[in-house]
């Protein structure tokens, strides 16, 4: 049911779509590696590498795990923990990361 909706919404679908997504993933992987090997400021490098990682994750989750075609509740289920973890990490910054 999920996939049928997807087929309507996107021009390519099924195996072709899976393949296209994979091409993107590999491309992003190599972009990340490229950023890693090129001598640019560490902060910028980390930022770019993780940006690529986030895009990869979003692609996998939305297409391979077809969250793109799912009920809003599953979005909530997937995002709530991410938000919580981010909040916890931020709350812990002063104690653990920048401890006296």
């Amino acid at each position, binding site marked *: 049911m999920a*996939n049928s909706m997807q087929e309507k919404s996107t021009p390519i679908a*099924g*195996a072709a779509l*899976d*393949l296209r*997504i*994979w091409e993107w*993933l*590999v491309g992003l*992987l190599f972009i*990340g*590696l490229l950023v*890693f090997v090129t001598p640019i400021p*560490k902060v910028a*490098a*980390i930022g770019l*590498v*993780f940006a*690529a*990682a986030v895009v*990869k*994750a979003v692609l*996998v*989750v939305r*297409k*391979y*795990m077809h969250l793109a075609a*799912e*009920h809003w*509740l*599953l979005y909530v*289920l*997937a995002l*709530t*923990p*991410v938000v*919580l*973890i981010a909040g*916890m*990490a931020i709350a*812990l*910054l002063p104690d*653990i*990361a*920048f*401890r006296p």
Partner: protein
Amino acid sequence: MEAAPNIEAVVQFGDGDSIREIPAARLAIWLFLASEIMVFGGLMSCFMLLRIAHGGWDAEAAHVHWRIGAFNTLVLLTSSLTMALACTSAKERKRGTARRLRTYLGFTIVLGLTFLGVKACEYSLEFAKGFTPGAGLFWAFYYTLTGLHSLHVLAGIILNTTLWIAAARADLVPVVQRRIEYAGLYWHFVDVVWIFLFPLVYLT
């Protein structure tokens, strides 16, 4: 909010809440994955926080084999592709579906095993250099994070293998077609975890 209930309408249209239309197993898997995100997310945040506290651990991080890690990432991404192809073929209702499904699942299993094999070699290389889990916080985190992830990969391989065996029996193919979606969700999640672990451990 529910409108004034005309009982029969309610009975027919499931009270207008669409949530019960989500297949129970899919809902359960996503709930399970949510808790998994908290586990891995928690560990990763601990790693990042202590890493900041210790000024980056660049010296230690220089010792991990990022090329091997990159190769493993490629392996896992590809296994995600074969898994996705297996799920896609499971949805189509034409001849040879079962065969294609088994082929793709087989590839996924082999790629998963490759990942574990490569990881094992990597571990042995690091052990050889004396970088054991007790050799400092960075290595403790390295082994905890990648080890826990590898255990998840192993679980995924076992799950996929049971489906692969079941798919050989014509009478079980429908069951496999139904259940492979859930195995796929789990496998892709394990892939997503690695997508973040790789830069976190190898590229920073």
